[in-house]
């Protein structure tokens, strides 16, 4: 099946037609593929046997395609981050935190406040350097809740979320954000690609404002955070 994801033409050689339904929003028609991803039924069955989860063949096939794609992104000046990206009031915001911290809850609190907010990708957005900007893209691989749009946004703000008993938001210097950001970035396992991705992360820290958000589960947390972020003076150089 043919998909266009992160402005890249991708041909996935799936065997299960049901996999197409999982990628429905991203199907595309093109003459020439930039990347071809074969996935054999043998690989899928082996992954299903080794997996502790009871996922379907189609889901597993799609997951393996994603895994293989993630190894080829560096050549397109792209990488994966673990976080939820939203587009709202001219901003592209990524909420990042280890799993289970509450970034989805916080993101949904923002959605309650801003009806025109778009969730670009709720779990692992593809970040790509394009036209001298860092854009975050939706993809079929967006977490178990399935929040994604076939859309993109230029990133302006990175927010690290931490659960707390009171709501507050603080500006971080790029330097202070390095460890946490790299911790949530998929760094390739070959040195040339790893260096390329680290270069993109460096660029991301130059182009975005970085914040630390301490938040409760309540909507109030989004009020406090959005007040600061949406009213912050232009930081992009």
């Amino acid at each position, binding site marked *: 099946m043919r998909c266009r994801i992160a402005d890249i033409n991708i041909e996935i050689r799936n065997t299960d037609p049901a996999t197409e339904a999982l990628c429905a929003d991203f199907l595309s028609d093109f003459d020439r593929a930039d990347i071809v991803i074969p996935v054999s039924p043998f690989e899928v069955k082996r992954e299903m046997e080794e997996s502790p989860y009871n996922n379907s063949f189609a889901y597993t096939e799609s997951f393996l395609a994603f895994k293989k794609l993630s190894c080829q992104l560096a050549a397109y000046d792209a990488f994966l981050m673990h976080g939820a990206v939203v587009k709202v009031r001219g901003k592209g915001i990524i909420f990042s935190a280890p799993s289970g911290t509450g970034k989805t809850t916080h993101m949904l609190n923002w959605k309650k406040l801003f009806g025109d907010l778009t969730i670009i990708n709720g779990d692992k957005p593809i970040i790509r350097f394009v036209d001298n900007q860092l854009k975050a893209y939706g993809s079929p691989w967006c977490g178990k809740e399935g929040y994604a749009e076939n859309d993109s946004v230029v990133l302006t703000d990175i927010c690290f979320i931490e659960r707390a008993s009171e709501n507050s938001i603080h500006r971080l210097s790029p330097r202070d954000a390095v460890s946490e950001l790299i911790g949530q970035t998929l760094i390739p396992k*070959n040195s040339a690609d790893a260096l390329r991705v680290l270069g993109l992360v460096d660029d991301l*820290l130059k182009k975005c404002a970085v914040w630390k958000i301490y938040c409760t589960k309540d909507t109030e947390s989004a009020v406090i955070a959005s007040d600061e972020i949406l009213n912050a003076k232009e930081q992009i150089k």
Partner: protein
Amino acid sequence: MKLKTEFVVRNVADKTVAIAVDSSENSFNGMLTLNDSGAFIFEHLKEDTDMETIIKDFLAEYDATPEQAEGTITSFIEKLREAGLIEE
């Protein structure tokens, strides 16, 4: 002695970071941040080397006494050793 695994080292937002890029699944999956002298010693450990060579080059680069150099280098290498990153 040298580093057990391959690292890429790069400056990110004015911090020198070192990330393991060993292709095996169970490699050291972490990140180190290095200060200036740490980055210098780390670079030496990418190839097989010994204390004498590192101390000699360190003294050529930094304004330190031989005792200070040995102390700094020993302590840094010991930390790497404790993290299982040194191959003798």
